[in-house]
């Protein structure tokens, strides 16, 4: 028989041994965790690739905040669309929607599927609805409580709902969109009168044709576009999206990697214990004539077999779990995603085998170096393997694994650094907790004293178990807190009667009627802020990008049009940090402010709030003064005294920075990056924005307001927050599902360490029972030990979670730090339950076996 077959034969005979089982279990958990995320990421990425050109709806897409009048010569097929946000209402129900006005050619590639009823797959049809009709997605139907065939109001026009958008190019699922989709005809936008000067519009120009013509056209196009206009090739579009997704995917994969690494700890312990128990076997085989190479083959085959088996089972579990994740994250896309791919299987199996190799290498190296003389002298240890060799070998394998998942060197550094720091802190905390446990042990009695003594005696094991379980509980708790705390906390710290609605796109002629309407209904509104959109182009006469270091050139502030306003009064929530404010210092009106561009709220708010570009006569006035927000000043290296150039429509304008302000962005009030002194922008036809507080009992006023002023967009902040919260909760639920793997891996570490100490425990139990200890006493002792371990892990995790949350709340979100008393009960209880159960299940039989039988077994 070859040694590989012999290895398999011995493995089969030992399959019920505890170490193999733990090793296999830990491997299944680790591989299950990485394959779950692997499968999911792969399916989404392939969905993006497979859609190819249909992803953009064209071969080439140009987006612009302004219409583009002239194009380089070309022979391509074209289509144009206009996207903007507006209110859609039906009776008293109203909803902000993303409207896409399309021509008959849209889309040039791929298809739009329209269904007659919600939740049907529909048939491919032109996206342009029949005259007087619109297509909406099913979410909007639900929000407006409407059905296909009924009518809705957009601005001043009424449209019939002619179908449900079941699928459109570039869409995987509707979950991440905040505003439902509506398709309407380009030639019917005018009837709605929703486009005011100042409405934020995105012009989408699509092109399709031969690759050669496309590349010539694309080459000719790029020089004539400015930084706010983008050309996206179908390949590039997919790549951009895929790149963005890959970043998010990478962090999720790293979460899975933590489970894998925790499994590695369990595997290492199990493998070490397996080696200890097999020194005699190895020595005997050497006596029988086995060489080092043959032993290596034998044990490597055993490990490889377990590795492949564990990986296969892990991958199977991963396949099931990813389906559950798809249901959580992309419920709409579940049927449209491609089937499971093979690539993640390879990645997961290789990860599993690498983890196994890294974890069990030192034990294996010692096992094959057992001297044959051990058969005569049991005390002979295996020949020492240079510690550095096994450490370097294992370390290299694990580092390879981390590097593979983290992708770039910087992330590897951060991950390894954070991991080492976390492990260090956890070991320190675990040691401190055990010292505290010694104090408790001294004043306890009976089985509890016995149990605590056990915990303290196996100090190394206890530290490891505590560390692993604390880590798992801590991460689970942290996510739960992030979800519940941050949004709630932010919401709670808003003063009562903070504005809860923004009124956007108020045309100059509407200002008086709107004010009258609000005052008639006793609604408290802020001042009106005029807004104009403009692009920052230069600093002190030099193109702005050239004044910046390379890593700052990619700033989002430079790629988009900014909302520019003017006022002589320093708004509340603004503080001048440098320079001198250009007007009065007294705050006007009760409340004001606009959400920050770039924070969760503002991304949406900004899309709705920005006014149009008119065609004003602008004068470049060297004495023009502006105030710049401090964050923007820092990012773009701006200082008081610098002169900035803006492109507003086709005009340029220069102004000198006379002050730098800090802005409280999360105040839910209108805020601006750049505020001009009155006099420079006044000539522009700007629409205005105002915020208003509508008490819950007055919410009925809004439908009336929307009917009276159909062109004004009413942005409900409550709804936006709820939307963000829902998406956030969805993602966190998905990550929590992954953290289930982490908890399981933590339990595997507990079981592995307990198994390693099982013989010693059994010996102790036999002795105690022989001396007269009852089974119940031993059982209570074991329970005390594991519950104490679980409670300690829970308490440590609570400490870590509170500290982490305090840092996150204080440093990142500027929220008041608060304690979570329930955490201090829930985590120790969860720890006691999980550690108690796994500990008891692993060790209970030592209290049941009769002492005589135990003695024989140990001999």
């Amino acid at each position: 028989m070859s040694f590989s077959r012999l290895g398999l034969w011995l493995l089969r005979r030992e399959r019920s041994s505890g170490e193999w089982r733990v090793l296999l279990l830990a491997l299944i958990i680790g591989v299950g965790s990485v394959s779950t995320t692997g499968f999911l990421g792969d399916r989404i990425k392939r969905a993006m690739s497979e859609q190819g050109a249909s992803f953009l709806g064209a071969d080439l897409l140009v987006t612009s905040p302004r219409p583009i009048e002239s194009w380089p010569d070309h022979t391509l097929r074209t289509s144009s669309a206009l996207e903007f946000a507006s209110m859609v209402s039906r009776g008293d129900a109203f909803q902000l929607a993303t409207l896409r006005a399309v021509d008959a050619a849209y889309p040039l590639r791929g298809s739009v599927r329209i269904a007659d009823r919600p939740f049907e797959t529909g048939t491919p049809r032109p996206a342009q609805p029949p005259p007087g009709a619109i297509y909406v997605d099913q979410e909007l139907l639900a929000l407006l409580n409407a059905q296909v065939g009924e009518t809705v109001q957009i601005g001043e026009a009424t449209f019939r709902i002619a179908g449900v958008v079941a699928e459109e190019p570039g869409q995987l699922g509707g979950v991440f969109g905040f505003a439902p989709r509506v398709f309407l005809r380009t030639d019917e936008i005018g009837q709605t009168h929703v486009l005011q000067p100042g409405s934020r519009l995105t012009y989408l120009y699509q092109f399709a044709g031969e690759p050669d013509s496309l590349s010539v056209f694309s080459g000719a196009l790029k020089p004539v576009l400015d930084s706010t206009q983008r050309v996206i090739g179908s390949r590039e579009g997919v790549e951009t999206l895929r790149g963005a997704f890959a970043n998010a995917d990478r962090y999720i994969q790293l979460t899975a990697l933590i489970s894998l690494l925790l499994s590695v700890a369990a595997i290492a312990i199990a493998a070490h214990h397996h080696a200890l128990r097999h020194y005699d076997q190895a020595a005997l085989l050497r006596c029988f004539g086995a060489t080092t190479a043959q032993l290596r083959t034998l044990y490597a085959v055993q490990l490889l077999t377990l590795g492949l088996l564990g990986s296969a089972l892990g991958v199977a579990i991963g396949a099931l779990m990813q389906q559950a994740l798809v249901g959580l994250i992309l419920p709409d896309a579940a049927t449209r995603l491609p089937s499971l791919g093979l690539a993640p299987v390879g990645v997961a199996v290789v990860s599993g085998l690498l983890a196994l190799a890294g974890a069990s290498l030192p034990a294996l190296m010692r096992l094959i170096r057992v001297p044959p003389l051990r058969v005569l002298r049991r005390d002979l240890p295996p020949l020492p393997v240079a510690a550095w060799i096994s450490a370097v070998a294992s370390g290299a394998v694990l580092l390879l694994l981390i590097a593979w998942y983290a992708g770039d060197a910087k992330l590897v550094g951060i991950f390894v650094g954070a991991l080492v720091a976390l492990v260090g802190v956890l070991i320190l905390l675990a040691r401190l907790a055990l010292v505290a446990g010694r104090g408790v042990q001294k004043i306890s009695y009976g089985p509890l004293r016995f149990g605590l003594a056990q915990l303290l005696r196996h100090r190394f094991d206890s530290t490891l178990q505590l560390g692993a379980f604390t880590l798992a509980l801590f991460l689970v708790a942290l996510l739960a807190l992030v979800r519940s705390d941050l949004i709630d906390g932010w919401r709670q710290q808003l003063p009562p009667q903070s504005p809860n609605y923004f009124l956007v796109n108020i045309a100059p002629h509407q200002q008086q009627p709107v004010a009258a309407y609000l005052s008639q209904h006793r609604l408290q509104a802020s001042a009106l802020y005029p807004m104009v959109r403009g692009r920052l182009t230069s600093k002190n006469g030099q193109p702005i990008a050239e004044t910046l270091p390379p890593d700052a050139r990619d700033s989002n502030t430079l790629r988009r049009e900014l909302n520019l306003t003017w006022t002589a009064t320093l708004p509340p929530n603004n503080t001048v940090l440098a320079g001198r404010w250009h007007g009065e210092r007294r705050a006007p009106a009760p409340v004001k402010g606009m959400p920050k561009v770039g924070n969760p709220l503002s991304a949406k708010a900004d899309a709705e709030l920005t006014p149009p570009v008119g065609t004003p006569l602008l004068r470049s006035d060297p004495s023009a003064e502006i105030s710049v927000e401090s964050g923007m000043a820092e990012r773009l290296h701006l200082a008081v005294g610098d002169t900035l150039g803006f492109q507003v429509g086709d005009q340029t304008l220069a102004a000198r920075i006379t002050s730098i302000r800090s802005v409280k962005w999360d105040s839910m009030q209108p805020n601006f990056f750049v505020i001009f002194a009155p006099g420079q922008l006044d000539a522009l036809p700007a629409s205005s924005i105002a915020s208003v507080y509508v008490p819950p009992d007055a919410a009925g006023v809004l439908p009336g307001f929307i009917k009276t002023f159909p062109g004004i967009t009413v942005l409900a902040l409550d709804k936006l927050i709820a939307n963000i919260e829902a998406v956030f909760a969805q993602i966190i639920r998905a990550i929590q599902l992954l953290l289930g793997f982490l908890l399981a891996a933590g339990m595997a570490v507990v079981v592995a360490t307990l198994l390693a100490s099982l013989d010693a425990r059994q010996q102790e139990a036999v002795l105690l029972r022989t001396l007269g200890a009852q089974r119940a006493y031993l059982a209570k002792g074991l329970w005390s030990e594991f519950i104490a371990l679980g409670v300690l892990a829970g308490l440590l995790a609570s400490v870590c979670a509170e500290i982490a949350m305090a840092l996150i709340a204080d440093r990142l979100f500027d929220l008041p730090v608060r304690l979570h008393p329930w955490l201090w009960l829930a985590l120790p209880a969860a720890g006691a339950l999980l550690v108690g159960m796994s500990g008891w299940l692993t060790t209970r039989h030592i209290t049941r076996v009769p002492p005589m039988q135990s003695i024989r077994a140990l001999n």
Partner: protein
Amino acid sequence: MAHALSQRVTTADGTLAILSEVELAVKAGETLAITGASGSGKSTLLGLLAGLDQPSAGEIFLLGQRLNDLDEDARARLRAGRIGFVFQSFQLLPALTALENILLPLELTGRADARERAAHWLDRVGLAARASPTPRQLSGGEQQRVAIARAFATDPEIVFADEPTGNLDADTGARIIELLFELNASARTTLVLVTHDDALAARCQRRLHLVAGRTAEAASA
């Protein structure tokens, strides 16, 4: 054959001589008992003779090969199928059945009739009906019978036995001795055993007595 065999170990307290200048030659088919008090170096000598360890000085020839010239793996290859072992603590693999424990060295040598031979040897030691229990389910005497069957199953040229009755009561020990010598006689194997049991030593053709690592006397039975 061993010539001027010495074994020294270095400890924290200095160098300790376990064996000094031991001379020994064993003929094929001979039975030899190595006796002596605890710590006299009996097991060390057995280990050296079997090629399980390297001497600090002196030469050992096993099956015509000078062991000093062979590394660990070469010595292992020399042992494969040609040397049998019986140990005081039986050294049966706990996960394998009685039959499988006998099968193990046969499988290592790749014999085609491994299973039949294992069954045959199980029968020879009187345990034909006890093929499937694992060592835990066997008595001490039964375990040593299995170990003896395992030692002879590969038709070895030499069997080394280290205190084969050390863990057994007197009656069981006596029966094991009977079995060992009966099988040895019928297989015409060279038997080298370590014991401090005079009755067992008396059954051997020769006896080598060690005192503090030195040959004290050699007697022929």
